[in-house]
C-alpha cells in the first residue's frame, strides 16, 4: 500500500489526500477484480471436482476446453433474469440483504497480506478484525430470511443465526494458539515470524489440533459441507435464499465462495506460512521489487489446496442436524480449542524456559 502511495505522490506529483484515495481505489479495485475472477473460477472448479468425484465430466460443452466459460455464462444469464420481489416481502430488507451479506465478507480482505508489501492496511488487531467483520454477514442472512416472507427461508435464517454465531467461539479460540506463538495480532508479523522460524504448524504438536478445530469451525462459518444447514438442499428447499432469483441470488452464490476464500486465506496465513515457502526456500518475503509478487502466487496455491479439501469434504459427508451442530460446537470443538491453546502456552514456556 505504501509503494502505491509513494508512486502517486512521487512520480505523478499529486496531493497527499488525492494520492491516498487513488491508492485505496486501485487497491480495492484490484482486490474486487481478483475476487470476482476467483469466484467464477471457484464455481467452475467446484463443479468439476464434484463431477470427477462422481465419475462424470462436469461442464464440457460451454466455451472451449472442459467448459471453462461455464461460470461467465451463468453470470450473464443471471443478469438478464427477471428480478422477482415476492408480494408479501418486506421490500427494503429484501433489496438490501444481499448487499450486506457480500460487503460483510468482502471487508475481511483488507487485512489479508497477499505478498510482502501487498496489503491494504496492516491492522493491529488483524485476526480479530476479520472475524468480527465476517460476522456481519449473519445480519444480512437473517434479513434475507425474514424479509422473503416464506416459512422455509425463515427456518434457514434462524438456523444460520444459531450456527454461525455459535461457531465463532471455537474459531476465535483456536486462532489464539498461533497468536500466542507469534505474539501479535498483525497478520504481517505472522509472515515475517514464519519466514524465520518455519511454519507455525510445525512449531508444536498442539497446533495440529488448533488447525483441525479452526478448519471445522470455519466450515460451519461459511455454511459448507456437513454444516450447510441454512440452505439445506433436501430439507429447507433452498434455505434463506429460497425467494431470491436472478442477480440477487448470484450475490448469495458468490458470497459463499468468497467466504471460503477468506477463511482459507486466514488458515494459510496463520498456520501454513502465508506467502513463505516451507524452509523459507526463496526467501520470498524480502525479494527484489518485481519478484516479491511471487508471494501472491505461493499464497494462492496454498489457498486452492485448502479450498480443494473443503470441496472434497462437501461431496463426501452427509449433513448434520441443528442440535448435533450445536453440541459439536460447544461440547467438542470449544474444549479442544482451549486444550490446544493451553498446550501451546505450556509447550513454549517449557521450550524457552
Amino acid at each position: 500500500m505504501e509503494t502505491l502511495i509513494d508512486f502517486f505522490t512521487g512520480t505523478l506529483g499529486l496531493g497527499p489526500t488525492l494520492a491516498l484515495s487513488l491508492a485505496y481505489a486501485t487497491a480495492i479495485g484490484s482486490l474486487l477484480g481478483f475476487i470476482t475472477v476467483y469466484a467464477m473460477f471457484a464455481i467452475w472448479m467446484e463443479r468439476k471436482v464434484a463431477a470427477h468425484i462422481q465419475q462424470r465430466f462436469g461442464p464440457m460443452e460451454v466455451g472451449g476446453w472442459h467448459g471453462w466459460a461455464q461460470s461467465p455464462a451463468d453470470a450473464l444469464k443471471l443478469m438478464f433474469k427477471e428480478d422477482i420481489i415476492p408480494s408479501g416481502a418486506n421490500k427494503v430488507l429484501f433489496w438490501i440483504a444481499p448487499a450486506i451479506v457480500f460487503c460483510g465478507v468482502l471487508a475481511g480482505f483488507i487485512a489479508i497480506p497477499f505478498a510482502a508489501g501487498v496489503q491494504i492496511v496492516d491492522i493491529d488487531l488483524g485476526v480479530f478484525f476479520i472475524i468480527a467483520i465476517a460476522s456481519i454477514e449473519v445480519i444480512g442472512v437473517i434479513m434475507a430470511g425474514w424479509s422473503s416472507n416464506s416459512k422455509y427461508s425463515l427456518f434457514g435464517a434462524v438456523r444460520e443465526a444459531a450456527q454461525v454465531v455459535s461457531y465463532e467461539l471455537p474459531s476465535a479460540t483456536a486462532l489464539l494458539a498461533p497468536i500466542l506463538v507469534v505474539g501479535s495480532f498483525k497478520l504481517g508479523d505472522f509472515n515475517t515470524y514464519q519466514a524465520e522460524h518455519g511454519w507455525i504448524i510445525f512449531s508444536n504438536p498442539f497446533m495440529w489440533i488448533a488447525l483441525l478445530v479452526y478448519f471445522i469451525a470455519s466450515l460451519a462459518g461459511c455454511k459448507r459441507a456437513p454444516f450447510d444447514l441454512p440452505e439445506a438442499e433436501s430439507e429447507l428447499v433452498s434455505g434463506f435464499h429460497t425467494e431470491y432469483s436472478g442477480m440477487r441470488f448470484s450475490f448469495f452464490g458468490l458470497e459463499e465462495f468468497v467466504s471460503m476464500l477468506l477463511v482459507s486465506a486466514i488458515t494459510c496465513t496463520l498456520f501454513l506460512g502465508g506467502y513463505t515457502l516451507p524452509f523459507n526456500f526463496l526467501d520470498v518475503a524480502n525479494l527484489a521489487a518485481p519478484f516479491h509478487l511471487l508471494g501472491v502466487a505461493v499464497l494462492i496455491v496454498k489457498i486452492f489446496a485448502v479450498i480443494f479439501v473443503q470441496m472434497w469434504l462437501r461431496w463426501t459427508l452427509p449433513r448434520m442436524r441443528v442440535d448435533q451442530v450445536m453440541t459439536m460446537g460447544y461440547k467438542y470443538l470449544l474444549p479442544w480449542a482451549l486444550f490446544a491453546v493451553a498446550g501451546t502456552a505450556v509447550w513454549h514456556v517449557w521450550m524457552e524456559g
Partner: protein
Amino acid sequence: MEALEMYTVDDRSDVYTEELKLNLGPQHPSTHGVLRVELSMDGEIITASRCDIGYLHRCAEKIGENVTYLQYTPYTDRMDYLASMNNNLAWSLTVEKLLGVEAPERAQWLRMICAELNRIASHLIAFGTYGIDIGANTPFFYAFRERESIMALLERPSGARMLYNYIQPGGLRRDVDENWVTDVLAFCDDFEKRWAEYNTLLSNNRIFIGRTANIGVIPQDVVYACGATGPVMRGSGIKWDLRRDVPYLKPYEEVDFDVPVGEGTHGTLGDCWDRYWVRMREMMESIRIIRQGCAALPGGEVMEKVMKKMYKTPLTPEAGEAYMRCENPRGELGFYVVAEGGTSPIRCRARAPSFCNLSLLDSLLPGTMIADAVAIIGSLDIVLGEVDR
C-alpha cells in the same frame, strides 16, 4: 439456589407462542415424489402432521375394469415404477391363479432372476435418494452407476429400460439371449466390491449414524397395527419374508437365502438405520439368489402354449376371484381380481405396500424435527405411483 429459580420461566402461560403451519409440499426435494405433509411446527419440532396424498392418482383400478388381462400388465408397471418387474410378476401370478395355469419351468426361474435384479435396482435408488435426503450427494451417483448396468441387463430381454412389461400372464414375453446369463454373473461379482464401498461411504459414517439412529422408531405392534410390510416390518425385528414363508414361485423353495432383520446395532431396534441396513443386506441376499438361479437355470419353453393365443384373442377366465401376495422391494403387493366371464375383470384392486407403510407416518412425525422428518420419509422408501395408484 432459589434465587436461580426466580429467573427460570416455568409456566409459559404468559409467553404467547403460535403454531407454524408448514407445507412439506407436493414439490419438495425429499418427499420422493408428490406427497404433501401438513406439519404444524413449534419452532423446529413438529407437533402434528397429516399426510395428503392423491397427487399422482392415475385411475389404475378403473382402467383395470376396462382393459383386458394382458393389456393391464403395462399399467401394473406404472404403479411401483421402481420395481416394475415385481409388479408384473404379482399381476401375472394373480391371472394365472385365476385361470389355473402354471408358467413353464424356465420362465419361473427367469422370473425369479429378473425380479431379484429389479429388487437390487430398486434398493439402489432407495440407498441413493436416502443419501441425498441426509445430505451426501455422492452415493446417489454411485448407486445410479450400478443401476445403469442392471437396466442394460434387463433391457436386452424385455426391450425397455425401466417399465419392462416382460413378465406376462403365462410366462415371459421372449427368451433371454445366450450370453445374458454370463453378463448377469459378471455384474454380481462386480457388485460385491461396490457394495463394500457404499458401506464405508455412508452406512458406517458417524454423521449418517447420528442422523438415522434412534429416529423414527417403529415398535412391532405398530407395524402389525398399521399393516407395514417388507423392509419396514423386517427393520423392526419381525423375521417374515413371503419369498421364504409363503413361496409364491417354486424356484424360491429350491434357493437358499436368509432374511435380514434389524438388530438395533446403532440405537434402538426399528429405527431408520435398521430399515436402511435391512435394505442394504437384502441386496446381497438377492445377489446370492441370482447366482443360484443362474446356476440352476433349466432349458425349455418360456411361454405357456395355451396362453400364446392371448395375444390374438383376449383371455376370458370364468367367474371367480383370486388374491395373490408377492414380496416387492417395498413390501407385500397384493392383487385382488374379481372376474365374471368378460375379457376384463369387474374389480381389480391392488394392495400397495407403500400405501400401508405411509399410514405409519402420521404416528411417527410428531416430536421430531424437520431433518428427522426427512430422514423418516426416506427410510420408509415410499413410491407415490403405488400409494395413489
